[in-house]
């Protein structure tokens, strides 16, 4: 226990990242099957079956952040993938061909596990992997919720798919599915998600103890470690640190003060992470939240398959405009935001093509300013530093005007 006191959550995070990838590579080396899965999939099933799993979206982001994406992107484009397709997909499909990355290697998969709650693009991406690698694919189709709530017949459909997938997993592993263990994993996953949510909620305090760009780092672990004890420990640890910082009145950075609080809409620009971060910090802008804390707050009652199905269909990207509007308006109020930065991300059409309308509605409902900038999650070629700088500066000017008006009453 003494070790725990010395170990910071950030150090533990780094250890876990290494352990995660080494564990998967080790499993492969021992002849055990490896799974590639999408970021908000019902990982409870995989955890129950004790299958080593890596997440291509995490991997692509890591490659992007270490400025290695272009080699894989060029490989995929050389084979006919359009530069308009999702860059996570291009990086991963490139990796599946090259199978070597300076940034981080992952083992090649024996099984694919795909859930369309984040987009339909993953259906095409994983279909192509299955065809090229000639391996089985377990698909969860979570229909887009064009009503405010998730409709009952959709829940039934998704529950049926989870049951079907359990059969597929039994056939694949030639092992019986252990429902007792499943219950435990469900319980643990819910608890981890709760700590994730509680940790990120500390950013509601002014100044926020959380620097939102750190959240991007921890996000990789809520993707791949929600269902195990390590993940649970990590997010509790992170939560406690943020709580202590908040109670001590400490802000996000030691070197600067938080002057403005914004939400970042969309995925990070991984290849330009430090550029995008520094341009904000320069003006004292802290990104205190995004739509992500809620997207991985996957909560349901233990052993309730229908509840689980519904929870997995309830993420922001799979919801209608009215829901999204209410969600962002709530974030503006709860996190006392001064502005919003919208990332018009060339990779993510599902988020982009609702962004303009969300922006107008949120502005009308809250009166806070916002800007849209052009970028991409992993393709370094679709971002202009000059454009980003100018837009951020414009946002600062608008936020300052608002503050000035408030000061004058």
């Amino acid at each position, binding site marked *: 226990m003494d070790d725990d006191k010395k170990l910071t959550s950030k150090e533990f995070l780094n250890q876990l990242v290494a352990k995660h990838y080494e564990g998967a590579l080790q499993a492969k080396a021992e002849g055990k099957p490896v799974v590639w899965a999408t970021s908000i999939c019902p990982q409870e099933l995989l955890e129950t079956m004790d299958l080593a799993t890596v997440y291509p979206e995490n991997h692509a982001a890591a490659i992007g952040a270490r400025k290695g994406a272009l080699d894989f992107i060029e490989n995929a484009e050389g084979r006919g*993938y359009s530069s308009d397709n*999702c860059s996570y997909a291009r990086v991963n499909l490139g990796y599946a061909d090259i199978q070597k990355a300076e940034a981080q290697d992952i083992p090649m998969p024996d099984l694919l596990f795909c859930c369309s709650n984040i987009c339909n693009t993953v259906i095409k991406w994983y279909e192509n992997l299955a065809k090229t690698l000639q391996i089985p694919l377990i698909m969860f*189709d979570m*229909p*887009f919720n*064009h009503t405010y709530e998730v409709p009952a017949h959709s829940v039934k459909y998704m529950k049926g798919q989870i049951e079907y997938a359990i059969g597929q997993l039994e056939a694949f592993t030639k092992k019986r599915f252990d429902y007792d263990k499943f219950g435990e994993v469900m319980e643990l996953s819910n608890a981890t998600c709760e700590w994730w949510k509680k940790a990120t909620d500390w950013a509601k305090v002014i100044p926020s103890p959380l620097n939102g760009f750190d959240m991007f780092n921890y996000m990789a672990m809520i993707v791949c470690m929600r269902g195990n004890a390590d993940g649970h420990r990590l997010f509790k640890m992170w939560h406690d640190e943020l709580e202590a910082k908040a109670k001590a009145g400490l802000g996000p950075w030691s070197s600067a003060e938080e002057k403005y609080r914004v939400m970042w809409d969309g995925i990070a620009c991984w290849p330009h992470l430090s550029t995008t971060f520094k341009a904000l910090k320069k003006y004292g802008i802290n990104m205190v939240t995004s739509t992500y804390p809620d997207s991985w707050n996957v909560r349901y009652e233990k052993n309730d398959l229908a509840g689980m199905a519904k929870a997995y269909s309830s993420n922001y990207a799979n919801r209608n405009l009215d829901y999204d509007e209410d969600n962002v308006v709530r974030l503006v109020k709860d996190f006392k935001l001064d502005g919003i930065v919208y990332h018009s991300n060339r990779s993510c*059409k599902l988020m982009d*093509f*609702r962004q303009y309308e969300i922006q107008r509605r949120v502005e009308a409902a809250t009166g806070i300013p916002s800007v849209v900038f052009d970028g991409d999650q992993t393709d370094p070629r679709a971002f202009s530093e000059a454009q980003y700088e100018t837009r951020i500066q414009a946002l600062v000017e608008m936020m300052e005007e608002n503050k000035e008006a408030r000061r004058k009453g």
Partner: protein
Amino acid sequence: MSKAISIVQELEAAALSPYQAVMRTLKETGKEAIGCFPIYTPEELIYAAGMIPVGMWGGDTELKLADRYLQTFCCSIMRSNIEYSMMGAYDMLKAVIIPTFCDTLKCICENWKVSAPHIPVIPMAYPQNRRIEAGFVYMTEELERVRGELETISGKPITEAMLEEAFAVYEAYRSAMREFVKVAVEHPETINAKSRHLIIKAGYFSDKKAYTDKIRMLTEALKEESVKPFHGIKVVATGLIAEPPALLDIFVKNNVAIAADDLAQESRQFRTLSRSDGSVIERLSWRVVDQQGCTFLYEVEKTRGQMLIEQVKETGSKGVVIFMMKFCDPEEFDYPVYKEELEQAGIPVLYLETEQQMDSFAQIQTRVQSFAEMLA
């Protein structure tokens, strides 16, 4: 003028002036219209409700208003549809059905609620896991839901008898279309690449019953014509849509005929045979289950490449032309996979990137002509 040519001209005219064609259909039938977005919609339900399904596959309109909702890297069919909705071009529609086959369609469905609030939208999700029981049941439930929404709009119940009748009309339509494309292969001089497309497209703006009669008459007239030797090149077309029409003028000019297609707007609508058992709702669901090689319906085997190879062989075509609608993710994702299969089979491919708003055809002209030179 031969009988065939006069029918061709009539259908071409309808396809080139969709608005006038729809207004005429509504006037002649006294029915009301429901808009149908790509890729698939249950047109039979609309027809059974006593209304006319109208295809909404965009068009060549200047994009100004749609920028309010959509970035420029959005598929041009969808940008056009939003533009038209804001211009009031769709005001004759009682409602639109928007299925969420891709990420863009999901957003379009949401934006429509604001861009054209006066035209109600019936959103619809087709199950991707349609080959497992839960998916099949979901499909039937979605169809029942849409049936209910259509009943509300028309103010009348849709009975089983009405469904049976509508299904029969559509079965006749699909069988007539399959026959037409088969016979048309033998008459590339009369049914050139552009005519073929426009004839098929005209069906989206007509009462299917009347349209089917015309297609049958045309097919019969073609059968009576003598088969003339064709000195051009036959190809198989794939993609979402073979538009704008000016693109096909280039094919005609270079003597390139389309012998068979796998286009979403064309053969994918009618190539799959229906099952005969079960209720109409179940038969409609089976049609979705049985559809193969379509990028909008999950298929882990990805049979499209093999299907194209077979089409090339069956029709004696010399290559495959890909009409790639720029920014269409599903179509773009399929391409590298079937391209490799075609290459391995030694089948030349011509890749044409298209948008509905194209100002210059010079490069396409070069590509098509080069392709023809290469295959000659």
